[in-house]
């Protein structure tokens, strides 16, 4: 990238705009985090009472919140492998098949990404009710997998397209059985993409709300519980949770960015 040598007025304006944009993105988050250290409840940054860390241990006492958090993990435990598996299968099929039918298949498999989450949730509960399966964690797993699987599909497809197909042929030619070939050649090649998509699938499952709230029936996940609490009387306990969320995210982003820079 070319370094900008002279700063003209356009650049100055652009920089101001970027500054404002970044502030817009961060200000609410910072305010929310600050309120977690204020003893005032409901959370506030403007009526400051007392600096406190008391809201953090209170998190552990929120049995319901913890229960919902466990549900989030339970769901992810199924959604992540299912999505990666479906995404992987679709990516392999789409890369290897040719013709118009492939385009149609591709359009179908990518459509859940472009469908509003609530529609997926609704379709799922309507479908499963026919088989006597009620809305619960299970339907949420199904609904989430429907669209989350598209993401691994895209990631793995991108990698597959960069694959040297001669490698697979070479392996076959050397006497590898198709299964051995997949385990020893294709899978190792796809592994980075598979890990990335697993991480992404986890994030998507963990933070999903719009699909989940329509498909989960009477159960809860962390996000539905946060929404429920945010809607009614809320205490800074949620803010404390927010501090943890943001901190974890920042740490991960930094580690990720630094590692990428390091690799360069």
């Amino acid at each position, binding site marked *: 990238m070319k370094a900008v040598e002279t700063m003209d007025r356009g650049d100055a304006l652009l920089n101001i705009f970027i500054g404002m944009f970044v502030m817009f993105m961060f200000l609410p988050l910072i305010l929310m985090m600050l309120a977690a250290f204020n003893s005032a409840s*409901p959370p506030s940054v403007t009526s400051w009472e007392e600096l406190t860390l008391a809201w953090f241990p209170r998190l552990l006492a929120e049995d319901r919140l913890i229960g919902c958090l466990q549900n989030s993990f339970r769901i992810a435990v199924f959604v992540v492998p299912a999505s990666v598996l479906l995404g992987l299968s679709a990516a392999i099929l789409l890369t290897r098949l040719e013709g118009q039918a492939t385009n149609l298949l591709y359009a179908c498999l*990518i459509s859940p990404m472009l469908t509003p989450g609530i529609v997926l949730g609704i379709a799922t509960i309507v479908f499963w009710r026919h088989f006597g399966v009620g809305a619960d964690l299970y339907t949420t797993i199904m609904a989430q997998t429907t669209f989350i699987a598209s993401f691994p599909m895209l990631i793995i497809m991108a990698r597959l397209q960069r694959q040297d197909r001669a490698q697979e042929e070479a392996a076959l030619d050397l006497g590898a059985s198709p299964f051995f070939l997949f385990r020893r050649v294709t899978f190792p090649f796809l592994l980075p993409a598979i890990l990335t998509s697993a991480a992404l699938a986890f994030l998507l499952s963990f933070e999903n709300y719009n699909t989940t709230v329509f498909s989960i029936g009477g159960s809860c996940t962390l996000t539905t519980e946060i929404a429920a609490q945010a809607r009614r009387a809320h205490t800074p306990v949620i803010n404390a949770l927010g501090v943890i969320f943001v901190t974890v995210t920042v740490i991960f982003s930094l580690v990720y960015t630094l590692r990428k820079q390091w690799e360069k």
Partner: protein
Amino acid sequence: MKQLFEIYGWPLTTFFSACVALWLTILIVTPQFFMIELSLRFEDRGDRLTKIVNDLDVLYRDKGTKEYDLVNGPACNTTGMVNPMMTGDSSCAQFGEEDKLRLEQQVRELEDRIQSLLVEEQNLKEIKAQQFPYSVRNYTAMTGLHAWTLTKTVAFALIVTLIALAACYPVAYAVALRSGPVKTVILFTALFVPYAVNELMRIYAWLTVFDLHGLLNTLLVIAGFASFASDEVIIWYRFPGTVLVVLVYTYILFMVFPIYNTMATLDPNQVEAARDLGAKTWRIHWRVIIPHTKPGIAVGCIMTFMLAAGSFSVPYIITRGLQPKWFTQLIYDKFYESSNWNLGSAYSFTLLLICILFIFGVMAIFGVKLRQLAR
């Protein structure tokens, strides 16, 4: 297919195909089909059958109370704190033999009426089962109020998309083409952090701004336009603008990253070359950068529109019930409040259709193919 078999062998190929087939049928196509099927069934709540069921209910209740009296004698409050009289005629009066006979007679009469109604109920049920079950009444019967809600939701989503596009283009441009390597990394991280923070948390964060004692009102008080004491502060949650702002905030990054990703693949030398050839800034954007970025812009618009129009979390949390409902909330109510899954499915499918139309519209405007969208 042959190639697949050769490389992956039939067990793996069958397995992969089965996975995709399951995904396609059980998760994608059939559920949508079931939803549409449900939306085409109109539930008539004013027909004769419903009335009979209701009448039966009343008769059974009447009979039940009388039978209770026959067994237990007249109910009378003997213990407990208080007995608020509900039906008004319970008393502790003695229960004579004559009353008993009268009651038994009444119970028998009730039973007769119940029997005849049960027969009619059965007949009507059989007739109903034979009728053609489908109609489009769930779609045509959308009330003016709901149509207005839908229009408003779509309009809001469009505005959100436009604002996001206007705001994100310069940001993506600055990060992708206008910054040195270090600044790019910093900016990218700065954008990535809010993007990766839980969506609900980002929405929740705005409560600190809009609350009665939140940032906005405090600023107003400091500026002397309002005061907490006399309760002259503004209840921000009442204004549709709050939903708009938070929608933009929540989904704007789904616009930034697609645009950034495509823009970053542009060779900066192209821009330099255009500049060398004497092109003005706007012309460089119009002729070089925007054409290159088109797929990214299309994806950004589609994602932002779809997320904004389909957002349940933002209106749910931000309006706190003080504003007219969003279309998604309406759908939620149909499912979880007023027990009309059929109508809810119809509305849900309507929302889906609008999104599909928008996608095709954007693809036509930008001349982008579906394959190009996924990156």
